[in-house]
């Protein structure tokens, strides 16, 4: 049976289709592998989502790096070379993060990358940085349980945020009963696991701990807030430890405010709510609720005041707020500059080896230090939400806290340490004196 129509169609188009495909391929090769690094500048990759759901948080960090590069170039750049930012948009799409990382390193030949926000984005670029042996500075508080040769973690590890906050609530507020509420992804899971272990070690009974997980962007909090209320009315002082992810916080706090849960009855301490998030809420009903960070915009300190002033001039927006991950980028950036100047080169291996031990002033008056496990030392502050969307620091750690890559509270990791100086290993088991797995 002749089936003319279909076949002719196929015949006629696919010839052209093919041509187009090949043309596309050629174009691809030309445009992508065509670019090569200019020698008179040092290229700095910026890998933050500018579109999609994570743009909410990450756009600011992109601006921060551009701002820092601008400042550095005013000072004459690094090793006599100007810095040049290469901005890409991974569009809140995790595989695209990996692709863009690869592009930055291979095609644009950047010497360092500042980027990522969510754990999953970091996880998806990890193999790339390992394979191509480049450097990533990761500025966000995260669940820990990681220490990679090519990554430097300038955000807080759990022991630099969660545990001090719990200590504060026990000491200052005499809290006896705990709600651990979080969005269901790895950071809250791990943090809550660590906290649960820690609380039990402090003699809190199982029935005094309530753990609750909600999906991303959860917007109907009626039931959960009511449960918290019920849980809180069992005659013991109760507090909520919130690892709820950015977007879900606004409806959560609105529901809290409306159902009349006052901070003085059931305080909420949050690890993911900073100045940026509060900018979206009317904070008057929330006065007294807490947040634990390593930096607050409201901290009185010349360095901080100067930074805020310059930042607001740079962004031409006198209302533009600053927050903790921004400070992390500031510290990380300065550490990298120092390291590059120290070894007079941007060669990844040299810089990676030079970074541990490097010190850089943080914006809260102290000096942070890069540790052998590629985490840094930070002060921990507890801030109370004020009516104006800022925080009032009510407590701080007496000294800087060193970031633990591996949590002491988890069975899996209590014997592990990361040490890239002596042991040259990210997950060294101190019991067996073995470097687990392939290490890097």
């Amino acid at each position, binding site marked *: 049976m002749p089936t003319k129509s279909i076949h002719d169609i196929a015949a006629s188009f696919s010839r052209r289709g093919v041509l187009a495909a090949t043309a596309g391929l050629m174009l691809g090769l030309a445009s992508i592998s065509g670019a090569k690094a200019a020698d008179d500048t040092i290229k700095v990759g910026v890998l933050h989502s500018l579109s999609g759901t994570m743009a909410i948080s990450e756009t600011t960090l992109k601006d921060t790096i551009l701002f820092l590069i601008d400042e550095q170039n005013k000072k004459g750049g690094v090793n006599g070379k100007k810095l040049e930012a290469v901005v890409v948009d991974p569009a809140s799409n995790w595989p695209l993060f990996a692709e863009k990382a690869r592009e930055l390193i291979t095609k644009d030949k950047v010497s360092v990358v500042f980027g990522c926000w969510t754990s999953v984005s970091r996880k998806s670029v990890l193999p790339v940085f390992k394979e191509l042996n480049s450097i990533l500075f990761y500025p966000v508080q995260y669940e820990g349980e990681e220490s990679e040769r090519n990554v430097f973690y300038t955000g807080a590890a759990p022991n630099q945020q969660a545990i001090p906050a719990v200590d504060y609530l026990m000491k200052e507020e005499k809290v006896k009963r705990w709600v651990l509420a979080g969005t269901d992804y790895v950071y809250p899971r791990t943090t809550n696991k660590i906290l649960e272990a820690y609380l039990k070690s402090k003699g809190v009974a199982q029935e005094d701990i309530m753990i609750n997980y909600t999906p991303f962007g959860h917007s109907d909090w009626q*039931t959960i807030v009511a449960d918290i209320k019920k849980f809180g009315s069992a005659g013991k002082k109760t507090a909520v430890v919130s690892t709820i992810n950015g977007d879900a916080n606004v409806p959560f706090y*609105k529901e809290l405010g409306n159902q009349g849960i006052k901070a003085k009855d059931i305080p909420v301490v949050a690890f993911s709510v900073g100045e940026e998030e509060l900018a979206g809420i009317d904070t008057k009903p929330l006065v007294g609720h807490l947040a634990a960070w390593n930096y607050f915009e409201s901290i009185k300190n010349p360095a901080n005041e100067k930074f805020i002033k310059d930042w607001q001039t740079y962004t031409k927006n006198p209302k533009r707020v600053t927050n903790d991950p921004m400070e992390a980028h500031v510290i990380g950036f300065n550490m990298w500059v120092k390291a590059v100047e120290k070894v007079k080169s941007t060669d990844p291996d040299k810089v990676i080896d030079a970074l541990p031990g490097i010190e850089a002033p943080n914006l809260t008056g102290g000096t942070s230090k890069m540790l052998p496990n590629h985490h840094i030392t930070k002060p921990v502050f507890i801030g109370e939400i004020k009516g104006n969307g800022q925080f009032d620091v009510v407590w701080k750690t007496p000294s800087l806290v060193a970031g633990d890559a591996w949590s002491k509270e988890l069975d899996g990791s209590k014997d592990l340490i990361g040490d890239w100086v002596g042991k040259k290993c990210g997950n060294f088991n101190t019991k067996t004196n073995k470097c687990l797995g392939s290490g890097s």
Partner: protein
Amino acid sequence: MPTNLSARLCTFVLSLFLIAFALPAFAGPFEDAVAKFANDDFSDTEEAIAAVASSGNKLAFPIISALQDGRLMADSDSKKVYVTGADGKSIDAATGEAVASVPDSASAVRLNNRLRRSVDAALGSLTLQSPDVGTRLQAAQSVFKSHEETALEPVDAALAKETNKSVKTALGEARAAILLFKSDATEVEKLEAVATLRARGDQEAMALLTGMGDQPASVTKAAASAISSIQSSLAVWSTVQNAWYGLSLGSVLLLAAIGLAITFGVMGVINMAHGEMVMIGAYTTFVVQEVIRTRYPGLFDYSLLIAVPLAFLVAGAIGVLIERSIIRFLYGRPLETLLATWGLSLVLQQAVRTMFGPTNREVGNPSWMSGAFELGQITITYNRLWILVFTLAVFAILLAMLRYTALGLEMRAVTQNRRMAASMGIATSRVDALTFGLGSGIAGIAGVALSQIDNVSPNLGQSYIIDSFMVVVFGGVGNLWGTLVGAFTLGIANKFLEPVAGAVLGKIAILVLIILFIQKRPRGLFALKGRAVEA
């Protein structure tokens, strides 16, 4: 509530000032206590509060209420403490003498949650005999919360004088709470206390009973039975509460879906950008509030009322624009429409992102939208209540519009038989545009309401689009009542599942159920039968 409480307190403060000035100031421990405020140390401040409150000094009340409202200024160098009145006049807290001005070096004494609680407790016993009923009630309740033995005498004193019924009960409960924890209270007193709390029968009462520590056997027994009776009544209430939450969630779903029921249900147009219409409505609210904040702060409580028509117009206009420029070329090709509008939604999101920035925008709740009231043992928040009312109103208006107005008639005509309608001189293309505009406009209105409970961010729409489609498909396309029933069914089902299965599993379960349901009834709950289906 706290705001107008402090307002009442202020008036009360001033009245007390007059007395305060008349009398000569005390000397000795009181001054030392006051001076402690200047140490800027939370534990010192706490001691100071206790000492001042128990001093019986006439200045105690003004000082502590000033502390509560952040009007108590302390100078850490000179260790001097000042009370600045609401009217700007200031006095020296230690002596009560008026001072010309507070030195700049002085800053407000800081509080944390623990101190706020002790301030409440102190104020409670201090204001038990305030002339104002509301204040007395507040005082009684805060004493109930803190139930410190020191408050027993003031409570008894107040009880003796108290005439107002509700305040009397409140005081009674406060007294009971104190006695229950008072170590040297007699067994009889404690049993009475338990009875009173049992009568109160809410979670706080239960909290006290469960947390009262070791007591005489008879008391523990009575408490146990009281607890169980309270629990059983609370169990019933929690069902009621779930139902209410279900309704409120349902109303949100309905609000989000109702515009879709027009564009999809009546016109058969799959508008993937529907969520973005909602978002545009929310941003309209934001803009309105910004203008009001900067120009006419007085109007803030009316901001939503102003935003509703505006949101309708803005979203509606955009809707008409979309229909004219895109949709109308795609009639009869629903799947293409779906793709085009999805693309549109991406564009709109990114456009808003570039215009207003990627971060959330603050949309405040007007006073009548914030707070809650107790109905029996359940809390009903005003914003949820108003949204429910609002949704039903919108629904009713829409129904009426479709049934009784010329446009409604034309719409039904066009959707039932386009050719016939055209031949009868109805400008079908105009009707299409208006119908789509109407759907989008309603989505915009939904945005105004949702801005009260959710983020105002470029992603707002995305979080509602799938649910909206579920509601419409589940309820039965082309049938507004179906949408109504569908929304509330899903809402309530969701809320009864949530406590059992948890939020995530609950949502998954609902989705699976809908998928299975569609198999049974491919055209939803309220499906049209017969030839109409083919058309």
